[in-house]
């Protein structure tokens, strides 16, 4: 019979619920076809998708998801029923949004409610609830639907009233409402006319009955319409019988009352209508209860129902005490009470036998919840809203999986983007490089074209572009061989160089090999610099040829070219840089004993002891000098310098030892610089130059300095372990006598992942501030109280047995006397071990100023003033004690009690400084004038601001300026010089007092040569002048909010 499956819908037509907006045939067919299939996987998946979208929706219109979900459900489950769960979805949606006022005028929300009303036994209740709550009262649809339902029940007058109300309210779209009203009126009048004219046939029974108000109410008239029972002739009586008696008993609930006014419609002409009922908004506290539930007990007689008395149900029974919502009572309810047949249903909604089942009724529970919320405040300690957001319950695992998937997706996207970007950049750079290289080569030496091509080939090879090296022409052959020989020589150096030969291996045939000529390094500073460079870059195993070539030609190459080279080079070593060093296999490079040394480092504890006991040999000195510039090239690749050093100096035990030394010295600098300019590539670019300068200056400066006892030349870093050890050797009495100084015989306790043992206490590490090769700064709390405290211990572990920080702290205490207060670590213990030392600072707040920088936008003027004031104070004190901190960064300042505990005493300070890794004691190291060797000198602003001749104090001023700038704007300071005055290039856009700040910064920046202590004092007093009477109050307020921000940030 059926030609194709397209007729499926017809077979199920009785089972498809009509929809107001119609159905999509394709979906309908699919749904009907799937019905037979045993699995609904696709449906389940889609449903799951909606459910999770509800939970993880991040846009600003959550109703949209629900709207789509409901529409989809309607279309996909044409039969409705339990499977579709539509009623539950609607209920949940209504519940979710019924407190969101913003949706009250949204037609989608109204639609939701109207659909929900259809699921209820008593839609009229819902409509009047909507009306009272002003939900959708501006929309014509509410009035139309309402009137339609009333009309269907025969309450024409009420329906008219509703439409009138809508017209009065100018509900949108008004024309539709008007036309509907018009049609309604014509319908009513026509039906009335028909009813008057025609003999009653069963279709119009209702109307006819309505038209004859005289009919008496008799029991046997019931069901008259359907059963074709003719009414008795005599219908005279005084009681009016409602028309709609013929309808199903379920609908009876409100039909009886509502049909009464229906009669009045027809009386209207004769009986004047002065008392036209007006719809009064009924005070509904909560949405009406959906009552069209399947498998529910209907209301039974009262005598059989028992009143629930058990205490277990108290949650439900709470509302017994005067429900805070008024009951919906029909106007005609009083009359109806007299009717003996039925009990007024609207009353026993609350008291009916259904009561005990309310626990299953979610909406009822909402009603109760509302009351509960006011009474007891429960705090849900899990993501309840996510578990129960949709209709289905999600397990935590599902939620977690969803979050994970989301993150993974995001990450993948980001990665893809990054890769694309990188690729592009790489391509561009390769292009540039090729061009430049060609240019360089043609400029430097009129090489044949092919040679240039060859060079390009050699150097792009490491980039894995598989460029074919061209040219077998005889003309180029000698060039080629020459180059090969160069490479060969280079390898030779690696292979055959012994410790003794290190200084005197034969120079290569080409200029690049001058690099390795130690003598020239010593003799000629400028040459050695470029030479060092060349070598530094030449040593990377992959990029052997390229850098040496290009470097040699560096003199006539613009500086960008060098940068380009550096950049490309670092890219080639990407794997080394990004890959975890720890997992590098040992035999990756046979020449490379670095890994081995490091492993030995880890495996054998006495190793450090060797380093400490080692007698500095002249050889190692020169080696040190030779290597230090290299290790400065760390930013190029964090790992390579050490390896390089080893590559060159392998095989000799002495060399290895000296190498160890080199390694530590070098990395102390590199870590410092990398800390001061966290991964800023711009900084990296400056590095070689500054180091060059430093090298040039350190020679004469140090040779006459404190390190005189060290023979030979003295390319010493001011804060190298050796030098400090010298300074503190023998331990000053001050140190040894300090009560908190503990000299331990053992080795430094291993820093476990979480716990560290110091003295007799075990501390649980909560946070790591920074880690470098040599030291590590962590926040810890005593292990036995593993609570999340914001105040605890700060432990600094230093891998050299030099208690420098402790020394500085003690010196400060001695020199400052009373001024040594909360700005410093008042309670500091030092544990000196054989191979390192650990400092334990007590009572430090977990947060540093560095934590504040990311939230600088939320900082108020008060807080900044306070912080800057203390910043100036701290530095003033340091300088007064003739200590230069040398490495002022936001991270070194711990927030004091003043900030973290705003309600504490006023004398507490806002900042605390405990770290003195880069500090100089100018009383001890008096002849130092090397601002360029400080970490801050590696930053762009540091380079600009610090001249060679600047006094060391200047370094700290630059640090102050940078911190203030960070606090104000969140980024590092940028300066330019104008009329020999330094100015900050950042637009001081901060509204308040920007004039003040720019003036302040200007004074700090242009303090050239002036004594710092008076200046800082002056500035500080200026700031404290700004603290007026209400300042304290505002400060406390803003500090509280800052504290919250920090805590939130911390937990995130």
């Amino acid at each position, binding site marked *: *019979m059926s*030609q194709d499956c*397209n*007729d499926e*819908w*017809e077979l*199920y*037509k009785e089972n*498809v*619920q*009509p*929809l*107001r*907006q*119609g*159905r*999509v*045939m394709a979906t*309908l067919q699919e749904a009907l076809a799937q019905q037979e299939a045993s699995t609904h996987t696709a449906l389940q998946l889609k449903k799951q998708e909606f459910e999770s979208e509800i939970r993880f929706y991040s846009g600003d219109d959550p109703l949209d998801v629900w709207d*789509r979900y409901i*529409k*989809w459900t309607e*279309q996909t489950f*044409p039969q409705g029923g339990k499977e579709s769960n539509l009623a539950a979805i609607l209920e949940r949606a209504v519940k979710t949004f019924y407190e969101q006022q913003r949706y009250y005028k949204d037609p989608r929300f109204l639609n939701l409610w109207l659909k929900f009303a259809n699921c209820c036994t008593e839609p009229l209740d819902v409509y009047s609830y909507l009306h009272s709550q002003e939900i959708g009262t501006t929309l014509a649809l509410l009035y139309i639907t309402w009137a339609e339902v009333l009309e269907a029940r025969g309450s024409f007058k009420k329906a008219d009233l509703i439409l009138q109300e809508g017209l009065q309210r100018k509900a949108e779209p008004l*024309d*539709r409402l008007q*036309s509907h009203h018009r*049609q309604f009126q014509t*319908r009513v009048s*026509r*039906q009335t006319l*028909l009813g008057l004219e025609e003999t009653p046939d069963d*279709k*119009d029974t209702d109307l006819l009955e309505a038209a004859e108000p005289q009919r008496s109410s008799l029991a046997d008239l019931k069901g008259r319409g359907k059963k074709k029972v003719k009414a008795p002739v005599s219908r005279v009586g005084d009681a009016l019988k409602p028309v709609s008696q013929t309808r199903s008993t379920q609908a009876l609930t409100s039909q009886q009352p509502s049909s009464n006014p229906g009669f009045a419609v027809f009386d209207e002409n004769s009986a004047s209508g002065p008392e036209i009922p007006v719809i009064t908004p009924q005070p509904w506290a909560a949405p009406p209860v959906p009552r069209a539930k399947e498998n529910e007990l209907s209301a039974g007689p009262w005598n059989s129902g028992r009143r629930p008395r058990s205490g277990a149900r108290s949650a439900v029974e709470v509302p017994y005490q005067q429900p805070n919502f008024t009951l919906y009572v029909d106007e005609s309810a009083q009359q109806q009470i007299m009717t003996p047949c039925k009990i007024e249903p609207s009353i026993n909604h609350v008291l009916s036998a259904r009561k005990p089942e309310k626990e299953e009724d979610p909406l009822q529970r909402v009603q109760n919840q509302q009351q509960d919320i006011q009474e007891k405040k429960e705090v849900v300690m899990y993501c309840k809203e996510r578990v129960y957001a949709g209709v289905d319950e999600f397990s935590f695992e599902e939620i977690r999986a969803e979050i994970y998937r989301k993150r993974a997706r995001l990450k993948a996207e980001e990665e893809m983007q990054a890769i694309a970007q990188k690729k592009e950049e790489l391509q561009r750079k390769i292009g540039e490089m090729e061009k430049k290289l060609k240019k360089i080569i043609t400029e430097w030496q009129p090489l044949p074209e092919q040679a240039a091509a060859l060079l390009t080939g050699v150097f792009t090879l490491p980039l894995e572009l598989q460029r074919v090296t061209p040219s077998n022409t005889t003309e180029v052959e000698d060039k080629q061989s020459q180059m090969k020989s160069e490479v060969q020589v280079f390898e030779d150096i690696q292979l055959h160089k012994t410790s003794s030969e290190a200084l005197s291996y034969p120079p290569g045939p080409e200029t690049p090999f001058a690099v390795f000529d130690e003598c020239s390094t010593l003799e000629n500073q400028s040459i050695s610099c470029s030479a060092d460079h060349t070598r530094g870059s030449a040593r990377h195993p992959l990029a052997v040829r390229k850098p040496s070539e290009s470097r040699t030609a560096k003199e006539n190459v613009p500086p960008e070219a060098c940068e380009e080279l550096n950049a490309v080079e670092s890219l080639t070593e990407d794997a080394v840089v990004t890959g975890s060093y720890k997992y590098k296999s040992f035999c990756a490079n046979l020449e490379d004993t670095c890994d081995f040394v490091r492993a030995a480092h880890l495996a054998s504890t006495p190793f450090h002891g060797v380093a400490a006991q080692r007698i500095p040999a002249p050889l190692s000195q020169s080696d040190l000098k030779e290597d230090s510039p290299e290790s400065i090239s760390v930013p190029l690749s964090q790992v390579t310098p050490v390896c390089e050093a080893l590559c060159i100096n392998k095989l000799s035990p002495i060399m290895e030892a000296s190498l160890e030394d080199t390694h530590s010295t070098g990395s102390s600098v590199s870590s410092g610089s990398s800390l001061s300019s966290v991964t800023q590539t711009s900084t990296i670019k400056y590095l070689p130059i500054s180091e060059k300068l430093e090298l040039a200056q350190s020679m004469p400066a140090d040779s006459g300095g404190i390190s005189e006892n060290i023979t030979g030349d003295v390319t010493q870093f001011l804060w190298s372990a050796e030098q400090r050890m010298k300074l503190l050797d023998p331990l000053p009495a001050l140190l040894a006598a300090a009560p908190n100084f503990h000299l331990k015989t053992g080795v430094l306790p291993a820093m476990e992942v979480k716990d560290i043992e110091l003295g007799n206490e075990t501390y649980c590490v909560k946070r790591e501030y920074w880690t470098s090769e040599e030291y590590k700064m962590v926040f810890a709390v005593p292990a036995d109280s593993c609570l999340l405290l914001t105040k605890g211990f700060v432990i600094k572990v230093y891998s050299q047995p030099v208690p420098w920080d402790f020394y500085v702290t003690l010196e400060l205490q001695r020199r400052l006397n009373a001024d040594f207060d909360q700005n410093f670590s008042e309670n500091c213990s030092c544990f000196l071990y054989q191979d390192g030392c650990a400092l334990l600072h007590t009572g430090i707040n977990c947060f540093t100023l560095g934590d504040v920088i990311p939230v600088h936008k939320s900082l108020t003027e008060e807080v900044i003033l306070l912080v800057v004031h203390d910043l100036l104070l701290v530095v003033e004190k340091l300088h007064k004690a003739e200590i230069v901190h040398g490495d002022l960064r936001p991270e070194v300042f711990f927030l004091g009690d003043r900030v973290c505990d705003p309600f504490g005493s006023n004398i507490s300070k806002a900042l605390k400084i405990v770290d003195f890794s880069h500090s100089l004691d100018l009383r001890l190291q008096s002849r130092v004038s090397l601002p360029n060797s400080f970490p801050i000198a590696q930053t762009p602003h540091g380079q600009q601001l610090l001249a060679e001749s600047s006094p060391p104090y200047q370094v700290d001023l630059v640090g102050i300026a940078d911190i203030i700038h960070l606090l104000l704007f969140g980024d590092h300071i940028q300066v330019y010089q104008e009329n020999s005055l330094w100015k900050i290039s950042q637009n001081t856009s901060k509204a308040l007092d920007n004039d003040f700040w720019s003036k302040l910064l200007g004074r700090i920046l242009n303090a050239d040569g002036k004594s710092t202590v008076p200046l800082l004092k002056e500035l500080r007093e200026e700031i404290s002048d700004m603290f007026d009477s209400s300042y304290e109050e505002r400060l406390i307020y803003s500090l509280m909010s800052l504290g919250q921000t920090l805590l939130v940030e911390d937990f995130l």
Partner: protein
Amino acid sequence: MARRGSREQQGITLRGSAEIVAEFFSYGINSILYQRGIYPPETFTRVQKYGLTLLVTTDPELKNYLNNVVEQMKEWLYKCIVQRLVVVISSIDNNEVLERWQFDIECDKTAKDESAPREKSQKIIQDEIRSVIRQITATVTFLPLLETACAFDLLIYTDKDLAVPEKWEESGPQFIANSEEVRLRSFTTTIHKVNSMVAYKKDSFP
């Protein structure tokens, strides 16, 4: 022998076919008008046809109008120059076309020259027509509710060379912009084949 004896006069002629199809249109249009609530339901009365209870209008004007159309159709069907009948339901307020019932007619023009009647049992044709009418009734399962008052319009597609009769006018096809189309069943008298289809405005459903 038996086949020949009782069924022979049941053969389908061109005129008979035109009659059947025109009659189908009459009842079909009435059904649509009733089903879609274009006219108030109380203006319809029930009749038995095709083994179904169908509703036909009692409104004299409408009756008259439909009769005219059906008569005209009959004539054109007989001439085999009609291609399509379309019932367009549009909103009175803004003239927007909401539904479009389309009956494509395939005429077997060779029947014009033939004198011998085609052989197809009238009962089978009636069964086919019944299933089409049933489907029209069943479309409420997917058709959207007509929210506004609607009017209907009849379009008849004929061969090009036909002169427009009096009281008829030419018109556009009145398509629905964004429509969902559902094919209904078809029936054939062997001379005329009628394919039915309904198109309705698609909701903004995703």
